[in-house]
């Protein structure tokens, strides 16, 4: 029994470590390089141009997950990981949420989906990603997590809606969908948050939310501030020490700076026609 607990703990830690390493890697080195990714191979171009949830998409997710796992320094010491199944799930999750949102933006900008559809799909995908992740790799998290995530998801949906001029009814609908996912998951998550877990948990949740929010809305800072405010309330209520990172100012996001934007253009990603959704441009060019 003791061994089982130890194994479970290691598995969970491996999942969290992999997620942290890759979030860092992807945020700094990968996500901003999408333009190069699109031009890397015809299959990746077709990935962006194919319908949402296509089989081409699934194959691309798998190939990219595998390529990161095979080449990233974060996995040099592979012996440190106990459960490679968990690493696979975590990595696929990170890849999915990044690429799928980028594909949604691409489809919205090329007019293949409306802004309202974009808003709905992005928020629903957020819910699905959280649900799939919780249901598989991170089942060690507290039964209280759904409530916390539910709040964050509602806020994110709200800001998404504000950004995309979707009415509050739709916001509620999206939030309700997310709540539905969490309530379904609730019985499966058995352990309570402990004071030792809270910092790790909140960091994970906030980082996850920031990542999602950054790609779909200009309001990421506000979302994160709200998440942090919830985190503080939670700690105060439980009379836990408030982790220092909750007091820090969120990472700033540069918007509307022509030198700091990657423009995803209409239809053809390399044409010069500007559109109205932008993400940060890399500051280091890629060697081809």
């Amino acid at each position, binding site marked *: 029994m003791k061994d089982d607990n130890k194994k479970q703990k290691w598995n969970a830690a491996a999942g969290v470590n992999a997620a942290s390493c890759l979030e860092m890697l992807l945020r700094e*080195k990968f996500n901003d390089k999408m333009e190069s990714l699109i031009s*890397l*191979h*015809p299959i990746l*171009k*077709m990935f962006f*141009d*194919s319908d949402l949830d296509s*089989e*081409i998409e*699934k194959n691309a*997710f*798998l*190939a*990219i*997950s*595998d*390529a990161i*796992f*095979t*080449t*990233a*320094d974060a996995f040099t010491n592979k012996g440190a990981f106990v459960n*490679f199944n968990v*690493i*696979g*799930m975590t990595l696929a999750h990170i890849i*999915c949420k990044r690429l799928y949102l980028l594909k949604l933006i691409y489809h919205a900008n*090329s007019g*293949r989906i409306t802004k309202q559809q974009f808003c709905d799909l992005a928020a*629903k995908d957020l819910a*699905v990603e959280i*649900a*799939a992740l919780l249901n*598989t*790799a991170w089942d060690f998290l507290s039964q*209280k997590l759904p*409530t916390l995530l539910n*709040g964050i998801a*509602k*806020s994110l949906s709200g800001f998404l809606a504000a950004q995309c001029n979707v009415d*509050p*009814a*739709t*916001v*509620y*609908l999206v*939030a*309700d969908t997310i709540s*539905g996912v969490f309530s379904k998951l609730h019985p499966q998550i058995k352990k*309570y948050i402990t004071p030792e877990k809270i910092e790790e948990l909140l960091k994970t949740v906030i980082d996850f939310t920031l990542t999602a929010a950054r790609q779909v809305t200009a309001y990421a800072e506000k979302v994160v501030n709200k998440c942090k405010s*919830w985190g503080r309330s*939670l700690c105060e*209520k*439980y009379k836990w020490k408030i982790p220092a990172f909750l007091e820090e100012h969120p990472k700033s996001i540069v918007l509307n700076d022509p030198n700091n934007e990657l423009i995803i253009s*209409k*239809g*053809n990603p390399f044409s010069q*026609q500007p559109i109205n959704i932008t993400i940060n441009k890399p500051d280091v060019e*890629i060697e081809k």
Partner: protein
Amino acid sequence: MDNLKQKEQDTSTWISTFFEYLRSILDKYMQQFDKSKELTAFMQNEQNLYNKDGSLTREYQNWIKRFEVFSMDHPIDKILESEYKGDINRIEFLKGAKEYLSHRQELKGKYANSESGEEWLNTVLDSEEKRKAFETLIDKELEQEINNMSSDNN
């Protein structure tokens, strides 16, 4: 500063390696498609792909459909597994990634038709005042949830 330069260099090296590896995997996969040469040649000319308004050309759409059918019949797992050469850890890794993707697909299907309440909500929230009140209510609900969490724990 030196550390920063080193970090940038490491980043650049990793990205190059990553791209090289990914390209090799996708090339191997593409080679299994019987019309791979024609498709590659077709895609090299951007004018073949997009109309002036940014939409996909009919021919490009057809190619995507053909490749989609090919992808259904030829999952990329086989190519990846051949790269692994029996490495149990990598096989486990792939299994986990596939499980995650299947579960994600399953959830997407399950929640795909969750828009049935939209009409009702639009009827109820028929004015700006009501909508604002509703948004405030959502925030109040969240506060209440946090309070409930606290009392549950105490």
